């Protein structure tokens, strides 16, 4: 009798655990994370674009003044993935999620 009662409890616990794990895996995908983007920015972008978004090289946009940020996230993602001109490409090196995090961070640099 005991066994019959325990099995449904275990099954329910398993289901809840699975559901929780699915949520944990899905959460980071659901929204861009500017804090995570900040880390990628510091590592990959800061040398040229500056710690506060003020470009360190001529010809680059000043993110602190919102330059270059009027484009959609999709356009910016393509730009970062494939590069253009002085901007190198990050495809295969940063995931789309990482790039969206960077874009979210870029949008916080405007003063």
């Amino acid at each position, binding site marked *: 009798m005991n066994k019959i009662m325990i099995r449904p409890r*275990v099954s329910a*616990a*398993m289901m809840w*655990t*699975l559901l929780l*794990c699915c949520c*944990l*895996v899905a959460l980071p995908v659901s929204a861009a994370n500017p804090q995570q983007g900040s880390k990628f920015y510091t*590592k*990959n972008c800061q040398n040229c674009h500056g710690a506060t978004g003020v470009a360190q090289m001529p010809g680059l946009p000043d993110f602190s003044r919102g330059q270059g940020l009027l484009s959609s996230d999709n356009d910016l993602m393509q730009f970062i*993935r*494939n*590069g*253009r*001109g*002085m*901007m*190198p*490409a*990050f*495809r*295969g*090196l940063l*995931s789309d999620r990482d790039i969206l995090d960077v874009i979210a961070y870029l949008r916080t640099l405007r003063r």
Partner: protein
Amino acid sequence: MSSLRCLLIVLVLLLSACEQSPPPDALSEGQLFPALRLTGLDRSNVDIDDFRGRWVVLNVWATWCGPCREELAGLQQLGQVFADDELVVLGLNVDDDPHIAREFLRDQAISFANYSDPEMFIARQLLGIRVFPDTFVIAPDGTLLRSITGERDWISSAVVNALRKAVDGQSGDLQSL
């Protein structure tokens, strides 16, 4: 309860396996360049060490990478400036499909030797590349002297002169590239 514990352990292990392993550090200038076995776009194999005794300019590129496409013609001309026994220009393409790279090179009349890394294993895991393009200048003894990220004008006088001096035994100017 033991089955529940087992399930939890398995799930924790699965979740930890989902975490991406951190990329290796980028290669340091001054260290020996890794011994790479490269597969050509024509599927022939070559070891990077086979080029010992010559300066090597190894460019890592892709057809989808705008600045990579822009600098290929300059690299082609750079290779023609130097004698074959002085300096050789090589390409390492990271397109998923080597056929696309072959067609692109044919279309652009790029003839320097190109190799394929469709999984980006060499680029990411062995070379620690952070951006494309990335170009490595390797001395005849196999020492990596410069890792140059981003597009360059490879036939500018500054670049050609720095490489000429390096070939002649003075590699100091390479740092300005």
